[in-house]
């Protein structure tokens, strides 16, 4: 049951390409209409910092910012975000490698173990502070409950957000 040609001519829809603006740079991707932002990032741009934890919107590992607002990259079709500004974990640190205060706080508070959910946690955590949802630990816990961490670094994640909240105000 092997296809003898081992290669098909692609259909019109699959030939279509689109440009995604990611972390301030344009990336041309072959946009199958079914391609999610998550698969576009991981399979076509080499930006694998955004993680696939469930691929159907339940774990938060693929959280990116779309025009500054957190979205789940696995539930967002690539062709639907043309012209929008996508920010991934790779776009958070400064050009000179200086970490975002949230990234630094995650290191300082040991807010991860395996590190797989971490990019999504950090993208949500930045949004948590920016949206003014980090007023108390209880508020942070509520906001951050869409990002699952099986290593259960949760108490350290909350501590990191509390610290970064102050740094982000400065």
């Amino acid at each position: 049951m092997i296809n003898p040609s081992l290669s098909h001519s692609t259909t019109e829809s699959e030939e279509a390409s689109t440009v995604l603006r990611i972390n301030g740079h344009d990336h041309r991707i072959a946009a199958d209409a079914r391609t999610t932002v998550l698969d576009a990032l991981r399979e076509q741009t080499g930006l694998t910092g955004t993680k696939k934890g469930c691929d159907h919107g339940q774990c938060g590992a693929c959280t990116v910012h779309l025009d500054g607002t957190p979205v789940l990259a696995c539930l967002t079709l690539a062709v639907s975000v043309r012209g929008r500004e996508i920010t991934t974990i790779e776009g958070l640190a400064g050009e000179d490698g200086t970490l975002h205060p949230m990234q630094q706080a995650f290191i300082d508070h040991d807010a991860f173990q395996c590190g797989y959910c971490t990019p999504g946690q950090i993208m949500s955590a930045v949004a948590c502070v920016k949206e003014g949802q980090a007023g108390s630990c209880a508020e942070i816990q509520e906001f951050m409950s869409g990002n699952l961490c099986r290593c259960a670094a949760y108490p350290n994640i909350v501590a990191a957000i509390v610290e970064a909240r102050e740094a982000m105000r400065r």
Partner: protein
Amino acid sequence: MDKPLANLGTVFTSIGQDHPRSDGRRKVMGAATYTAEWQIPGLTYGAVVDSAIARGTVRAIDASAALAAPGVLAVVTHENAPRLHALPSHGAGQQITGEGGLGEERQPLQDGTIHYGAQSVAVVVADTPEQARYAATLVRVTYDSQPPELDWHSARRQKSPKMFAGTDLLQQSADDARAAIAEAPVRLERKYDSSINHHNPMEMLATIAQWDQRNGEEFLTLHDTTRAVSLLRDVCATSFGLPSANVRVVSHFLGGAFGSKSWTFFNPLLVALAARVVNRPLKIEWRRQQMFSVAGHRPPTQQTLSLGASRDGRIAGLVHESHTHSSPVSGYIEPVARMTSMMYDIPNIGFSNRVSHLNLPSPCVMRGPGMVPGGWLLECMLDELASELAIDPIELRLRNYAEKNPATGQPFFNKRLRECYARGRELFGWDSRPSVPGARRVGNHFIGQGMASSTHPALQMGSSAQATIFADGSARVRSATHEIGNGAYTALGQIAADGFALSLDRVHIELGDTNFPTAIPAMGSMTTSSVGPAVLSAARCALAALKELAIRDAESPLFGAAFFAVDAREGRLFLRGQPSVGEEYSAILRRAGRTEIVADSTSPAGKEIKQPEMYSFGAVFAEVRVDEATGVVRVARLCGVYDVGRLINPRTAHSQLMGGMIFALGATLMEESLYDPQSGLPVIRNLADYHIPSCADTPQIHVEALNVPDPNIGELGAHGVGEMGCNGVPAAITNAIFNATGKRMRRLPITPDQLLAN
């Protein structure tokens, strides 16, 4: 090196420090490369077709529509997949196949037999992931189905294997214990049930398989989500009939495992088979839904515990019986008596373990195997006995405190559980706990407190490492063990730093590649205790070789010095007592025209270094709030005090213990996988239905470790901490619920409906 390597003058300076994770920067920047993220030229993508029945055979697979779909390269099934040799019976010192073995015997696509629901029956390979996923929906599979066997008690194949993994006894005569119970003035017999738990690491199973021909020989390279590269290399070599040297397995970072990703060989073998058919590099990422059928799970248990005690609480006899289930193609059995057999000073202990083979997916180890469900029952029964006799639960445990392991009669070495009880009691505020259940209320909530003991074997197995000092004064250690979130890059880095007498930032650790010296899987809470000594020894050997180089070099200020008179500190060798006489590592190597100096070392296995009765111990305390109206249990506080030997890195150890406690909170209150009782197909297939603890479920947590080096486990004195945090928590919470409500909850997870019905 022939020189004796003890007392090289290396002082522990990095070990024991609270260093931030060495891989922290990579992880927060998204720059740590996990398995599915390797960029491989010419990569193809696979999507797996699952069986729609739980028992029977595949009658036919019609792949024509899938093959006609855009981008599809092949549909691989049992009809066109290459044949494999059987799995090895043992690996990494453990039994893999047969009753009591850890692995699934079935290999992928070797025949059309369906053993359980959602079993992988075909792989569609295409140019893009979207094409593969779509075409997989076009594969038409017809079956000759049979009614699945799903009943524990009527199952035709029921076994009582002697050993778990070839290492732990599963059956012990209960005759003496039953006689002792019959004569005891206080007798209790209770049944406790636990449910199926899935590991659900955030990173799903993934493999990239690549075949190459070189000099007429075949080579297989796997990037795989395995925490056992050496073991998987051996399994692949055996299965494909290749020399071990022709298989390379790489796994630099794992997105969690928790017991999965080691003994399930099916997934990497499947990808390797399909890659061979298309003769292109192939990646398959399993989907979250499929993690409930191919990734292993902790099997459910039906347990009975009988005990007889004196009125002052001394337990005279105890019988622990367990029934669990496995698949038709796995011998895995949950070893529930691991804690019962050794924890208390009970003169007569019997236990039995039975397994029914059902048409359900294959179970495997999960964080705290045996200890979590079996320890839960044991520690709940201690609480039942305590309340029956009106004795404080800690006092009851002290009355049955074991100085010797009742299983062997040998004394425990360095046991400090009394200190854990005492410290936990103080930290938690145990003495203000009302001993009468239901005595404390705040609004609609009953407040209760409970405690339990925790234990885990402090194991050690042989492993190897290679150490290199470079001419720029930096150093590197390589070993085929793993970073799974355990902090291995950091802890092993600290150990290496002390071995090299360098600061941590000058040491580079490389793990997870079969090109590196063989090491154990990241299993059994023993990476640090097993690989750590090899790393320390290898680094010291490299340093010793450097000293030899210096003292034989007429141009070195250390020329002619006695070997043991040369000390090392922060990248510099010097004469003891005359620190000004010496030179940098880099100067020695450069003058010798060497780019590096390399040394290998292998640490002995625990048994070879005369392993005494080595266990970690701990005391766990929980406070719960139970809503009277809804039956919802919220854990308000968890407190754990542990004796796990020396902490190589207190920060990462604390995180691991804390994470283990929350992990076990999930098993206690929310985690349960269900299979349809008629079809045998998985009903729970996602993280919205399989609840794991979220940020909002997290209680206030206080973790302390005694941090006393255990000389019995070698110079490092460190036990593992991966599983200790888990063990004990389910019983502490269950006992706290009794203290809150007066209800004995004897089934996990303890859900609101059960609390209201009880």
